[in-house]
């Protein structure tokens, strides 16, 4: 039953997909289609292409689920990794750079997907907020460099050329930005872990 699949964690769904269980793919799609599509759309800036990329990502999951290694990455990380690289490949084949990197990340919409479990939707929104908060700490020029590297798939030399800045300046911006994000997200992760641990301790004490 589909309701059973909704209770399974991502790794179990992947195992079921290796057994060609379509319901498992259906469930995984419901969980992550928006994440994959949003990422692809931000990179290629075209809905039809982003949908094709989304289809390709989930078809790859269907056909290559056996190659997933749980000890190397979370399922969501695996999906976004495939999506990002595929979308950047598409962008490079087009050899046309869109101008969407001026997008204001802070303007992200937190609409809930009708297909998505409310809890999963809330978790995705929380993770988005966390990353946006981290990005908000960055000076605009550092944020721009990260945008061009991550969503544009540009090398540092290409970023320097695009922004007409010395390569050394771009290298510094990228390095400083990533170090700040690393520090902020690590602190956030630690406090989140502590919060989860505190909740777990509270629940255990209540059961006792």
């Amino acid at each position, binding site marked *: 039953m589909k309701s059973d699949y909704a209770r399974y964690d991502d790794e179990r769904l992947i195992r079921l997909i290796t057994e060609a269980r379509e319901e498992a793919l259906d469930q995984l799609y419901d969980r992550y*289609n928006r994440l994959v599509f949003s990422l692809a759309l931000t990179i290629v800036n075209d809905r039809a292409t982003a949908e094709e990329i989304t289809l390709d990502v989930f078809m790859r999951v269907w056909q290559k689920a056996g190659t997933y290694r749980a000890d190397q990455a979370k399922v969501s990380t695996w999906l976004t990794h495939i999506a990002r690289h595929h979308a950047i490949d598409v962008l490079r084949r087009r050899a046309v750079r869109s101008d969407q990197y001026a997008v204001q990340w802070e303007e992200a919409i937190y609409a809930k997907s009708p297909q998505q479990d409310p809890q999963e939707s809330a978790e995705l929104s929380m993770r988005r907020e966390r990353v946006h908060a981290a990005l908000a700490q960055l000076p605009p020029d550092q944020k721009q460099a990260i945008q061009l590297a991550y969503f544009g798939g540009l090398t540092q030399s290409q970023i320097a050329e695009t922004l007409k800045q010395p390569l050394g300046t771009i290298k510094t911006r990228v390095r400083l930005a990533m170090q700040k994000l690393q520090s902020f997200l690590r602190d956030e992760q630690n406090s989140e872990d502590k919060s989860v641990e505190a909740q777990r301790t509270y629940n255990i004490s209540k059961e006792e």
Partner: protein
Amino acid sequence: MSDEHVLDSLPAYALGSLEAEESRRVDEHLSSCWICRDESNSFQMVVEQLSFAAPAAAPSPDLKERLMQRVHSTRLAPRVQAQPAKRPWLERLLPAWGLASLCLLIGLAGSNLFLWQRLNQLPVGTTSLGMRAVPLSASVAGSTATGFVLISADGEDGALVVDGLPPLEEGKQYQLWLIRDGQRTSGAVFSTDENSYGGTRIRAPLSLLEYSAVGITIEPQGGSPQPTGKQVLGGPLFSP
């Protein structure tokens, strides 16, 4: 270089924004330095989270249906090697036909894998289990496209296999129409591979025995409510 730490390069390495040569040097160093590897993993974690920075957007509601159609299509017609074009149509379709019909055959009580071998030696429309293989012919002058529809004895299951229909441009798919009393009902939306082969399960609101003919047209991705494109392949099924 591989003995020197590469800590300053790791942020850009994680983003994939190093030049190829420098990226190779970092790769080489990481293979033997756990200090830099730990730091690299930490930056990879940052990059993983950046995917959540993309403004939230939702794909079309029908995208999941398109995904599942693709899944069905690949389950029914895995890739096969192109066959020489000179052999009879049924023989040429054998690889795709055998594989494409496998799911259907498995689902039919009493079916067995000898069916395919026997079917290949029997006149069209007769099998020991009462299944019918109905050949389709090209509707366009000069086309070498062929195909057939396999229908179970009770008409409840059907599969389509085509050969010689070239892959379509982006945004287009083939659509199978089931014809009854002049009315056309969609039976499948499918694509063909680089060998111009394609296969799909047929889904119909009525028993397939109720339809008198089929046709295949080119339609926008995902299919149309009614045919809008030119018919490329077709043929009669039964006389209800």
